[in-house]
């Protein structure tokens, strides 16, 4: 990447960085440089090596070969602390805050102001310093508030305040907008713009290509551990980025859709209500239908899904599965009635990260393979089913038994979550943000999978924040706002503006 002001040396330079895990090359000689006060967008499929490269920069990993130069000096951090001392702050995808500590304590955990001569924290000074930092990120909260009481957006800002606190010169942001509402995202970008104006250098990693194209000065594309494209942002557009990321030209991201079937209802909600959460929600999902649930973050989409699967209580209304009422839903009852629920939090709720792929696959359907009366597990049919399901979802050829799920890429992890449910042969699948944080290639595979499941008669309730996904896949879309259904669109009526209007409507809450 060429510098616009050739006189100044770049702030950061990667020189032929290599890294392998268990003999599998993850980075194959990456060379990149970045000037002071610029934002570099780093894009690539999951498993392309973005996070590994950043972990090397941030002191979490050591490279096998190659060198990094930062601010004119060789940069070989042996720990995150050393990287931070050099002026590099890493805002991780999973935020690294301690919910049991206060905002002030989180901001100063490694550098508390002390009373002179004693190893005791100077509380007044701590508060003052915290206030100053929070002001810089325009966050108006008390410095003694425990972090567990903050929203996702507020926590993100605290993370950035932390970076400002160590006077970082380089800020690494890994998918910072994933759990933010639209408003919070706007606030974040305003802040990032301001920081860049003050000379902060940034590396911005995201699957939201529009954000990357709009915000970043330069873009670098990684694929399979190699740098396959890099240059000023103006040289790219979304289509070109996607084709670089997947290495092939994509004419159509989505599989074709079948017309909505006139088939029996598999899941019905009748005037479902719960105070403060959802209000009078009614809908009918038919066999073979893909029903989209649109709405902004916090509109009650996930809450509705959790209620339908018996994870949260509801106050009034009725749920029917295949025409028969589902009384007092609990996950186990829902499961026996043929419901499946793919959660939006695959790491926390969808997977046992330390367990093997095989063990994760068997979580749901194990009972079916242990017939009464003895309920001993019948290994062979189980293994056969696991192998079948694995090829059905085109799961990575990694060994089923030996690798913990946490070593897989996001896309493969999500496939494990889905496959786990498919083993129980559900009639209805509730998918909550099934393609969040997974790469474009895996997304396409997921779309094909969803499409195929519906074609074979499974009813699918698809919750998604990506409008394209809903427009491309669904037969019908419901729009949720403040926990109530505000609009319903049949496929021929699909219209972005109408959906957004229904989702956004700006009446004030009474």
């Amino acid at each position, binding site marked *: 990447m060429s510098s616009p002001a050739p006189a100044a040396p770049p702030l950061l330079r990667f020189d032929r960085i290599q890294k392998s895990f268990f003999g599998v090359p993850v980075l194959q000689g990456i060379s990149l440089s970045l000037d002071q006060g610029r934002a570099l967008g780093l894009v690539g499929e999951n498993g392309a090596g973005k996070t590994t490269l950043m972990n090397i920069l941030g002191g979490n990993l050591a490279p096998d070969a190659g060198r990094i130069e930062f601010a004119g000096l060789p940069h070989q951090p042996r720990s995150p602390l050393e990287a931070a001392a050099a002026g590099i702050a890493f805002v991780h995808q999973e935020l690294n805050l301690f919910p049991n500590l206060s905002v002030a304590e989180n901001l100063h955990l490694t550098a508390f102001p002390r009373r002179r001569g004693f*190893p005791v924290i100077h509380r007044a000074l701590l508060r003052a310093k915290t206030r100053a930092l929070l002001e810089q990120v325009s966050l108006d909260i008390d410095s003694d508030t425990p972090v567990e009481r903050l929203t996702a957006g507020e926590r993100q800002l605290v993370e950035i305040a932390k970076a400002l606190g160590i006077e970082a010169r380089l800020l690494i942001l890994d998918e910072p907008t994933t759990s933010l509402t639209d408003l919070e995202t706007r606030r974040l970008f305003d802040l990032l713009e301001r920081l860049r104006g003050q000379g902060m250098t940034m590396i911005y990693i995201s699957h939201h290509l529009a954000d990357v194209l709009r915000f970043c000065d330069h873009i670098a594309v990684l694929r399979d551990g190699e740098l396959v494209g890099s240059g000023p942002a103006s040289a790219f557009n979304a289509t070109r980025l996607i084709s670089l990321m997947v290495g092939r030209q994509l004419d159509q991201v989505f599989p074709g859709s079948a017309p909505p079937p006139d088939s029996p209802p598999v899941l019905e909600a009748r005037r479902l209500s719960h105070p403060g959460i959802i209000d009078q929600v009614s809908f009918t999902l038919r066999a073979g239908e893909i029903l989209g649930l649109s709405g902004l973050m916090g509109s009650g989409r996930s809450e509705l899904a959790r209620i339908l699967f018996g994870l949260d209580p509801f106050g009034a209304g009725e749920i029917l599965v295949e025409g028969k009422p589902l009384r007092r839903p609990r996950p186990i009852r829902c499961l026996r009635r043929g419901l499946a629920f793919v959660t939006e939090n695959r790491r926390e709720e969808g997977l046992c990260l330390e367990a093997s792929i095989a063990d994760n696959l068997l979580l749901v359907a194990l009972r079916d393979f242990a017939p009464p009366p003895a309920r001993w597990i019948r290994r062979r049919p189980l293994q056969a089913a696991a192998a079948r399901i694995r090829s059905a979802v085109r799961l990575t050829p990694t060994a089923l038994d030996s690798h913990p799920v946490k070593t897989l890429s996001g896309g493969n992890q999500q496939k494990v979550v889905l496959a786990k449910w498919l083993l129980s042969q559900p009639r209805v699948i509730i998918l909550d943000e099934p393609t969040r944080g997974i790469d474009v290639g895996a997304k396409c595979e997921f779309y094909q999978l969803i499409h195929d499941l519906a074609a074979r008669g499974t009813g699918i309730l698809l919750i998604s924040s990506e409008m394209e996904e809903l427009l491309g896949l669904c037969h019908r879309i419901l729009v949720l706002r403040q926990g109530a259904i505000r609009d319903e669109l049949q496929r021929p009526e699909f219209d972005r503006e109408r959906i957004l209007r229904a989702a956004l409507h700006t009446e004030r809450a009474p």
Partner: protein
Amino acid sequence: MTPATRHPWLIVLNQAPVVLFLAVLALFGARSAQFLQPDNLVNILIQSSSTAMVAIGMTFVLLTAGVDLSVGSMMFVGAALAGKLALQGYPLLLSILAMILAGLLGGALNALFVTRLRIAPFIVTLATLYLGRGLGLWITQTRAMNLPESFLHLGAGRWLGIPIPLVILGTVLLIAHIVLQHTPFGRQIYATGQDIETARKAGLRTGRILASVYIVSGACAALGGLISLTQLGAVSPTFGAQKEFAAIAAAVLGGTSLFGGRGRVFPGTLLGAVLIQTVENGLVILNADPYLYPLVTSAIIFVAVSLDCLRQRLVERLSRRLIRPV
């Protein structure tokens, strides 16, 4: 700040240890006038000081989501060593220093295995529990040792009118409280207990932090042993046996989470230790069947843990974010 923190039940449940303590005081006080006499209350405090001391160290370990089962054995080794030295005519102070040193070394051994070899704390300290007990039996040759009077004098002594055991306990408690709540190291213990991997990534020296809590626990165990020695004046082969359970119970009764990251030595752990002793004392005064003591104690621990779970669930329910006006 948020409505959640103002919920009346939550305020009550947040103070569960205090509420439980007052309830027990009121219960026994109503049954026996003797129970609430100041002399008896001071007596309870003195009797609980050894457990409280060990429980302070245990709280440090529990805060990191670990556990130290070896504290009872550490007490025994230290006491056996101190007794042996004292009987051979070494000065009192030297025996006490040897005792504390033994505790520090025992804690360091635990720390070494937990941090360097990354063995689960439960396993490591179970092993050192047997190791310590064995060492102590070897030092005492499995016989009870009657110590010189000087130990009992120390226990009966006063400083500024305060019984010496309470002076030792109070000093350690004050230091422990300041360390946990008001020093960078203390706050880093809470962070490590909440999520050790995140703590490591944040640049905390988690190895050192983990190591130090076991050393603190060992030292507190030795000091707890010292207090016991000054009260008993003898070392029996069962000295300190099962103290680990009393210490864990005291910490948990005082609101310390076994999952790490939550708890305080003051008032929490202190109250927990005193509560256990209060129950025993009250039962003695009421002439209850001695076989009943462990049953009542376990019932109270059960209630305390249940209240903590209730509190947790209430917090979760109250902090559920609403989407629309109720």
